[in-house]
């Protein structure tokens, strides 16, 4: 039995999160790569940009000696080949329109020296893609709409949407901000600075009244919305350059207070990433990744396994990155 086979010998019941990640999550990701170099959302499913990004990011950050350069290179190659002519990336291979995954793909490819042109094209597409809801004529129309009074949000603030020509939402806006923070300034297209400022203000404007974020409606159906773990983590990470701002602190407090009630493995992993990168301690008591796995086997999710790896990564710079992660020579062999 090779070391890899030994580690892959089945579901585990680890009380130690680090061991669970190294013995189960990393082998799961390594084995789930498709022949085309990409990853699907589940083992055996078609390669898509989003899970490929999470898998590459997690394998890179893991420092795992069993991650060969070939695995990452084939992943990068899949991403480069999936880029659309316009510079964006689509969510699924058959789709011909780019969307929010462009930010993720660019984030990952900033670590690949041969992908700088691809990243530049993606950045330009993102900065040219304005959401539709906050266009001046839309805002004028909205003033006469019966829905106008339902939400108190400032529609002049614009971030990014999930898909082009729709509305601004918290997660895609956060991913775009994370990319801008990760990409070197000299690579920013014109207008990027303005987009960043508007997007940051938009995120604060969309914060829930008690701190934290949901998808982007602090008022849901006319009532104060409740924050959710996943968008709160991404928004905090995107806004972490102002760690003393009261709204930021309130949202981080919300996250810290609510981690004990997390019910899904994905939220569990992301909450840990968010808290620790933002300087808070992860509670040592509570459910482990193995506990979560025993419930629903992570629903066989590649992104959730990748987030678990990232949560336990020693390399805290995976998020800011930008510098290619070099795979040790012995691993290449």
């Amino acid at each position: 039995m090779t070391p890899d086979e030994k580690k892959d010998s089945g579901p585990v019941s680890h009380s130690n999160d680090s061991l669970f990640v190294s013995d189960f999550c990393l082998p799961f990701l390594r084995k789930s790569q498709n022949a085309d170099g990409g990853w699907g959302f589940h083992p055996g499913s078609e390669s898509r940009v989003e899970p490929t990004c999470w898998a590459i990011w997690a394998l890179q950050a893991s420092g795992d000696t069993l991650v060969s350069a070939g695995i990452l290179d084939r992943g990068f190659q899949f991403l480069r080949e999936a880029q659309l002519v316009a510079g964006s990336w689509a969510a699924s291979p058959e789709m011909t329109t780019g969307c929010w995954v462009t930010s993720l793909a660019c984030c990952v490819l900033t670590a690949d020296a041969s992908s700088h042109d691809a990243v530049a094209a993606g950045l330009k597409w993102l900065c040219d893609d304005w959401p539709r809801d906050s266009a001046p004529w839309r805002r004028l129309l909205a003033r006469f709409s019966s829905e106008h009074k339902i939400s108190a949000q400032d529609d002049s603030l614009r971030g990014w949407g999930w898909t082009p020509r729709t509305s601004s939402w918290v997660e895609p806006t956060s991913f775009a901000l994370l990319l801008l923070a990760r990409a070197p300034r000299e690579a920013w297209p014109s207008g990027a600075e303005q987009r960043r400022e508007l997007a940051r203000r938009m995120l604060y404007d969309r914060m829930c009244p008690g701190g934290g974020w949901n998808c982007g409606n602090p008022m849901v159906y006319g009532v104060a919305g409740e924050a959710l773990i996943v968008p709160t983590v991404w928004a905090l990470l995107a806004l972490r350059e102002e760690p003393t701002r009261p709204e930021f602190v309130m949202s981080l407090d919300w996250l810290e207070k609510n981690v004990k009630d997390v019910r899904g493995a994905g939220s569990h992993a992301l909450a840990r990433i968010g808290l620790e990168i933002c300087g808070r301690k992860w509670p040592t008591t509570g459910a482990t990744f193995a506990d979560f796995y025993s419930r629903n086997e992570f629903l066989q999710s590649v992104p959730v396994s990748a987030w678990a790896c990232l949560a336990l990564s020693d390399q805290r710079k995976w998020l800011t990155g930008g510098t290619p992660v070099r795979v040790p020579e012995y691993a290449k062999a």
Partner: protein
Amino acid sequence: MRKPDIALVPSFQRPPSRVAIRRATTYEQDLAAMICETLREFDLRVKDKTVLLKPNLVGLDPLGVMNTHPCVIAAARESFLRLGAAQVLIGDGPAMDRDTEAIIESVRLREFAGPLARTFVDLNVDDVKRVALSTRASRLKELFLPKTVLGVDFLVSMPKLKTHHWAGVTLSLKNMFGIVPGSCYGWPKNVLHWAGIDSSILDINAAARPDFAIVDGILGMEGNGPIQGTPKPCGVLVLGDDPVAVDATCCRVMGLRPEKVKYLDAAGTMLGHLDPEKIQQLGETIGSVRTPFAVLDAFERLRQPNGGVWN
């Protein structure tokens, strides 16, 4: 494999639909026996087939007032297995939160339906296939829909009986919003809002029309649904072989006029029957279970005049 092209049939060419109303006052009673007995009346051809149950899972809901109750989902699953289905999957793609596992855990689905790792399909992240929209009710020319939904033999929409802030009511047709994958369209599926909720409901149901509907009306929601409304005990399960007829019947149970619900009125021309004359009623009568639901001011027009009288 289902045949989506049979979804669109003019009402005058469509055979009468059948809808059964069963009185069920609590989730603790033997719902599997009730649902199984009712399904037998419909003589469904599900033996050796793959069935997909599509409940309405909206968000974290420890009190069980906003999502289809896990007891109803589990009972339906058991019933289809008793009828000889080879496999009964449960699948949904929640719209507001991408942590689907957190939602199914919050509703305690595993507790009632058993292990979910191989049974539950997160439709938000399923493989997708392009479907051209022949209806063109909205501006959307195509949708990328989950291969699981398109590939199963029998699709069952399982909504909760609720009013809806934007659409008036959310029942088996509106519930199909949940098959549109978040991984392609986001959380929420904002492109559908831009295309028009009513029109999108028609396009989605024409592309993947449910073969059957089971509505959890034991505890519904009135007022500012589908999330912030008020729990409304109604004490019924509504089942039928035509989602339009089921939704129309539910509206009548709620004291609302289905023809005043924009998308239902349009669905009544091509997707199913709205006309009570074309709906064969089984079980309880509408009048015997009628429970008027409160609606927001914007939907007062849906109310039956004089409180409504349906038999």
